[in-house]
């Protein structure tokens, strides 16, 4: 074995004893803890952010739905429905001596209180003792503004 080999072996034996100082280990572990702690806090921040975003989203969706919810109509009682059906089934009675509306003519139906005396004057047969009474009726008005037909609503009161 040459002298160089011998010296190299002794250097290698000495070299084998070398270890990094403890301060290096402490610094490395401190960095490990810092990085892992940061990752953990990042995860917590992300989770908190996601929860907050979900809450805000739900709140906004609720507010939007509240604004755009269709207005619920009050339920029509069955008796009223029956009454409406009965009204629809009542025919319009042409006012005597007035021309009926032409097929192309656009008409309007106006609900109003009509004096019973006017109805009697127009030729309707009304049985009432009170000459000042009024009857609720749908009046069909032609394009010229003249009434063409009448449908009595409060028929039962007479």
């Amino acid at each position, binding site marked *: 074995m*040459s*002298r*160089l080999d*011998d*010296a*190299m072996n*002794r*250097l*290698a034996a*000495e*070299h*084998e004893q*070398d*270890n*990094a*100082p403890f*301060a*290096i*280990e402490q*610094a*490395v*572990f401190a*960095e*490990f*803890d810092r*990085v*892992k702690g940061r*990752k*953990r806090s990042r995860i917590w921040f992300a989770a908190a952010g996601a929860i907050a975003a979900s809450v805000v989203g739900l709140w906004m969706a609720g507010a939007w739905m509240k604004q755009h919810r269709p207005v619920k109509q009050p339920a029509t009682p069955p008796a009223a429905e029956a009454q409406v059906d009965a009204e629809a089934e009542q025919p319009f009675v042409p006012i005597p001596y007035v021309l009926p509306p032409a097929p192309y003519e656009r008409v309007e139906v106006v609900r109003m209180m009509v004096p019973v005396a006017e109805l009697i004057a127009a030729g309707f047969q009304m049985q009432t003792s009170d000459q000042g009474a009024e009857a609720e009726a749908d009046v069909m008005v032609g394009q010229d503004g003249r009434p063409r037909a009448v449908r009595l609503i409060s028929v039962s009161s007479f």
Partner: protein
Amino acid sequence: MEIQRHQDRDLLRRFRAGDRDAFTTIYRTHQACVYRFARAMTGDRMKAGEVTQDVFVWLIHHPDGFDPDRGELGGFLVGVARKFLKRRYSEEQRWVPLDADMPSIAAPGTNESDYDTERLRQAVAALPSRYREVVVLCSLEGKSYEHAAAIVECAVGTVRSRLHRARALLARKLIGKGCPV
């Protein structure tokens, strides 16, 4: 070799999951070879400590940087240390000169034990880095030529020739041209 790789894989999996004990095992298993390599390359304990710290901090920040299928973690970390050292050299343009006035410590024919290991260390540190690497890995760390070739990223034949050349340089610097390599 396979067992070592299996252990490395298991440790890395736990380390990547944030297991401090796994990282402690990795550090305590591999810190010595990284530190020794850095110390032999720099000839300076403080710089070797800094490089060792840089290597493990790099590992903390790049837990996926090592692929266990491509080799051993120890060799990989020494390779990382080598790259840090290269960067240091290029940044500092540092070169460790062998003192020109340093007398030969052993004349031909003197006792072999007269070799001053500290001076040999300095002589190793003064070698060009391509020679120093193979001396440190093969002669001081006892790694095989194949392993050293993987770390310094060159062919096995290159490692052999560099080692031969490095030993000739060391012999010439320390005891003169007459020293048998």
